[in-house]
């Protein structure tokens, strides 16, 4: 089993490198930071443009630029932005902002998605099943860029009804907030609820559909009947034997789901004005900055691959056949 997981890990590291290389190459080939500089009014002197070109290594071929950048990354230096600020300074804070959102979103998404799927499978064609189906159909048709503003609208209505700002939908914390750790925590929570919902609702809908169909397959199986025949209660049979089997095909979905989450996260950050990695990607492309873009891609790739690898671990944990081979 350790061999299997190690092989997958190596495979993922190679994929992440290729993905980052591709993003870096594409970005370097299409971006024109000098063009942006030249459009300034008054135009900067030719000498400073030349200096900028040298600073950005634009005189070198793209593969060589990538090697230069990558060798920096290995040592923990992600290069400098077009505006000549070190990327590494900002990276940690932005990763913190995004990961907080992603981890909460995916945890809620998986837990409630799986629960909802299981419940609607067990109560197939009952009212709750139809309700869950309708709920996920609507949410799956509703991208974050619609859901986010709608949540804001709902939160505003709620705030007005209560008469105080319970749910805050701008930023990740009140700027210049003063108070003890508990008040600060409450403040952060108030900011966190809506963006987390924006991400988690879509995930819940996504996972619940798959979980429902995989649970339905298991419900009709012989081993579940056997488990009940040998004296297990239905609940115990369902959760010890049924759910575990039904989760196996879900494990491979988690990697897919994470890709979805990262893209959704970009919208969430923009809508709720969080300055995380998704926001940075938009900033990076806006300022035609290959280093920022490649850094964000690397982050996305590492996240997706880590979740893919985690899915493999889960797969191995759930399915004994993998461990034997």
């Amino acid at each position, binding site marked *: 089993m350790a061999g299997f997981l190690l092989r997958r890990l190596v495979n993922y590291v190679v994929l*992440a490198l290729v993905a980052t290389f*591709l993003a870096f190459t594409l970005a370097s080939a299409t971006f024109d930071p000098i063009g942006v500089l030249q459009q300034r009014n008054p135009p900067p002197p030719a000498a400073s443009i030349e200096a900028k070109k040298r600073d950005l290594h634009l005189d070198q071929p793209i593969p060589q630029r990538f090697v230069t950048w990558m060798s920096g990354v290995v040592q923990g230096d992600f290069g400098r932005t077009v505006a000549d600020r070190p990327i590494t300074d900002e990276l940690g804070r932005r990763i913190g902002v995004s990961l907080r959102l992603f981890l909460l979103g995916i945890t809620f998404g998986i837990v409630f998605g799986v629960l909802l799927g299981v419940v609607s499978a067990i109560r197939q*064609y009952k009212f709750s099943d139809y309700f869950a189906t309708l709920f996920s159909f609507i949410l799956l048709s509703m991208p974050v860029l619609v859901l986010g503003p709608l949540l804001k609208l709902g939160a505003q209505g709620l705030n007005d009804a209560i008469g105080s700002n319970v749910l805050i939908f701008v930023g990740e914390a009140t700027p210049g907030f003063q108070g003890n750790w508990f008040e600060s925590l409450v403040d952060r929570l108030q900011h966190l609820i809506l963006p987390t919902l924006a991400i988690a609702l879509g995930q819940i809908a996504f996972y619940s559909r798959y979980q429902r*169909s995989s649970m339905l397959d298991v419900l009709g199986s012989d081993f579940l009947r056997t488990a009940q025949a040998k004296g297990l209660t239905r609940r115990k049979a369902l959760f010890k034997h049924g759910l575990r089997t039904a989760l196996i095909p879900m494990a491979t979905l988690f990697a897919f789901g994470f890709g979805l989450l990262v*893209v959704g996260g970009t919208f969430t950050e923009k809508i709720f004005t969080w300055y995380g990695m998704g926001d940075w990607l938009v900033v990076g492309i806006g300022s035609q900055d290959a280093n920022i873009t490649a850094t964000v891609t690397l982050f996305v790739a590492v996240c997706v691959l880590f979740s*893919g690898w985690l899915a493999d671990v889960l797969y191995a944990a759930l399915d004994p056949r993998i461990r034997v081979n």
Partner: protein
Amino acid sequence: MTVILNEGDAAGTTGAASGSPVDAAPEPEKAMTRGRLVLIRFMRNKLALVGLVVIIGMYLMAFVGPLLSKWTYDQQDYAAFLEPPYADHIFGTDKIGTDMFALTMRGLQKSLIIGLLVALISTTIAAVVGAAAGYFLGVADKALMWVVDLLLVLPSFLIIAILSPWFRGKSWWLLVIMLAAFQWMITARIVRGMTLTLKEREFVKAAKFMGQPARKIIAKHIVPNMASLLIIDATINVGSAVLAETGLSFFGFGVQSPDVSLGTMIGLYAESATTFPWLFLFPAGFLVVFVLAVNWVGDGLRDALDPTSTRVRRKEKKTKEKAAA
């Protein structure tokens, strides 16, 4: 309406052979053809029928609606700035007095055309590449599998966003091509898998031994036998293409001004959702309803075309259902 159902008919006549050899045997009296059966099953599905009506209604509305309105998108009403919906402007006006109905229709037009084109192109590519990869195997096959893997790590959203500075200011056709270029891979992989099994079927072998060239076998025997899958996929792809387009346009990475799409409108007015909700709610509502309708039709087609479909035999406990993605 006729377009999709006629395609279903075509699938019925050619696809019957793959379903089961018994069905394909010529029957003496006027038996029910598979096309009719599919039609009846589809019509029985209320949600899918509603979805179909909504889709046709939206295409009609997008192209006929502006002709009936007395305002055009480039007119400004200096007597109405930021007015909520009322008799004269049924969707209200924005801050320079543009009629939101005319603008929304224009955005809807662009989004719907892009969705349709991208779906047609990407499904065609998927059929050709997937069938060729599965039929010939070898290098092309390896490359396809690898590209699909890579796309999981490097979401197409990211790639197109990175390339967006390059097609900024150019025709929206480039965006159609870019979206299609990144949407076919996962379908192609499914097509590849189906080709692998079809390749071993008697009728394909017979054609091969009769000396048919591979190109003809793929075009005449393999692709028509996957018509069901391709129709369903093309339908679902319209929805995902519209979502991808709006997502990119939201950040200004997709449709560029002077063109308008639902995505650019949502991007522009998302900020105003809490203050001037009608600016945001109309384009967002059209987007969600359209995607929802597409998903319902896709689901209905799947149930109608799939012989092991659940809705037809819903009494049976053991069901096999694919989740709507």
